[in-house]
């Protein structure tokens, strides 16, 4: 989808937007404007007296969790890397989810917020090396980031130089062990773990891998403190997050919301539905379909989405209109995911194409009354059997489709494809030409 700079109308409560406060003028925020908008960054406080590890305490007290999809507590992750010798910080800006646009938006419009976060994290964990990884085919983005890094170098802002690295564009190449493998000179494919990157990452050193939005939150927490961060969101899931809203809504785009906002309120923020909705895809292609009536009141938090049978993922909300076919949408995404595997693990290499074929048959051919059961039988043969979460993410999506669209699935199985399969595809699938097929 296209990146739109639209903080838009915001919900009542804490003063929002926070991250996106500097967006709206459709321009990249230079260093001077950035400091005017967000305030000057003091690495050790104005007196230079603060211990660098103090930031980890503050991030932990803030309750910030990773915004890349896994939702791991950021402070704990930082602590696992700190104090263990010369560490490495890796900012993950290689947005693997085709339906997500938030990381690209942050890096395009607010590069200094992310770069502040990298420098703060590097200082806190004692890193001597820092990387910002983005997809290597995004030349304009890389040029813009290089200019921002150069501007900061002239101002003497980053004691640890930030290196911008372009990585391959495959779906699983933005997984944290893939990035570490690529920075170590290998292919950008997930690794068997343990060891995990925080134990042994780039050149065997303790490595902190954080999503770029997570680091942007760190940049604001360092300025305003943990209590300020907690004044938005829920006590159990504090702060704000970026969401990418797409599908049958009036103004698709990236929005900043408080954690705990209902999925329906997020759709309303994006101008509301453009027609009757049957379901929402929440969390992206590793997320889940939820029937619209289930999703509407469900709070956007990790636990809220799990309780509703979904996953928060990287904050994607796609509204599926009643005229579309959820089985056909799922089939197209499954074909893409099956093709995007690293081809390393047998159950994923063999199982995902089999599953994608079974879902495509159900969607576009119909079955003889046994296709739904055939899909159900394939799922446990794939789940929890890969080195990374790729196969599990894909099966979660199919399981959710079989729950949310079960009536439609049975119709397809017994009577053939519904009218909705002729509806124009809603979910974005990167074309064969535009994405980068290599691993190395």
């Amino acid at each position, binding site marked *: 989808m296209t990146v739109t700079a639209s903080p838009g109308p915001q919900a009542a409560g804490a003063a929002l937007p926070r991250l996106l406060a500097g967006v709206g003028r459709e321009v990249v925020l230079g260093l001077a404007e950035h400091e005017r908008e967000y305030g000057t960054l003091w690495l050790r406080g104005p007196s230079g007296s603060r211990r660098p590890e103090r930031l980890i305490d503050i991030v932990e007290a803030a309750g910030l969790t990773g915004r890349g999809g896994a939702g791991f507590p950021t402070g704990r992750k930082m602590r696992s890397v700190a104090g263990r010798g010369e560490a490495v910080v890796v900012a993950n800006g290689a947005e693997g989810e085709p339906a997500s646009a938030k990381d690209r938006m942050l890096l395009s419009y607010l590069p200094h917020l992310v770069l502040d976060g990298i420098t703060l994290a590097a200082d806190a964990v004692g890193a001597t090396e820092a990387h910002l990884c983005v997809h290597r085919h995004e030349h304009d983005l890389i040029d813009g980031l290089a200019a921002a890094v150069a501007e900061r170098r002239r101002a003497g802002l980053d004691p640890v130089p930030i290196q911008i690295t372009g990585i391959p564009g495959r779906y699983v190449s933005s997984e944290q062990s893939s990035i570490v493998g690529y920075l170590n000179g290998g292919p950008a494919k997930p*690794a*068997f773990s343990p060891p995990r990157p925080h134990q042994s990452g780039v050149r065997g050193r303790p490595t902190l891998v954080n999503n770029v939005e997570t680091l942007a939150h760190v940049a604001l927490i360092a300025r305003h403190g943990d209590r300020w961060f907690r004044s938005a969101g829920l006590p159990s899931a504090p702060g704000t997050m970026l969401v990418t809203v797409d599908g049958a809504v009036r103004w698709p785009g990236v929005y900043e919301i408080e954690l705990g906002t209902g999925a329906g309120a997020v759709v309303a923020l994006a101008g509301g539905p453009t027609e009757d909705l049957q379901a929402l895809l929440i969390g992206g292609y590793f997320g889940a379909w939820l029937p619209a009536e289930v999703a509407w009141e469900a709070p956007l938090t990790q636990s809220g989405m799990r309780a509703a049978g979904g996953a928060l993922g990287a904050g994607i909300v796609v509204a599926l209109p009643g005229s579309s076919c959820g089985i056909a949408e799922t089939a197209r995404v499954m074909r893409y995911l099956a093709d995007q595997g690293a081809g*390393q*693990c*047998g*159950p*994923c290499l*063999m*199982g995902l194409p089999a599953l994608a074929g079974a879902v495509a048959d159900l969607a576009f051919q119909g079955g003889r009354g046994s296709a739904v059961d055939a899909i159900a039988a394939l799922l446990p*043969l794939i789940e929890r*059997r*890969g*080195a990374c979460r790729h196969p599990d993410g894909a099966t979660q999506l199919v399981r959710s489709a079989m729950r949310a669209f079960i009536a439609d699935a049975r119709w397809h199985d017994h009577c053939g494809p519904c009218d909705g399969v002729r509806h124009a595809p809603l979910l974005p699938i990167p074309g064969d030409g535009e994405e980068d097929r290599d691993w190395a």
Partner: protein
Amino acid sequence: MSHQLRVNPIACRGHGVCAELLPEVIEMDPWGYPILRSAVIPPGLVPHARRAAAACPVLALMLERAQVRRP
């Protein structure tokens, strides 16, 4: 001290030796890759599990002491 089996799915090439040597615990999926019915190995089967792990041509099957979960 209990033992558990773990498959390195990246290394595994589906030779199927393990399923032959340890059918009590390991079955094959339709593509020839091992499925562990249970990761934890009963004490009586540990020698068999050790033999299965040693026989894997690519050393993808690992018998490990069950680790105490750290927070």
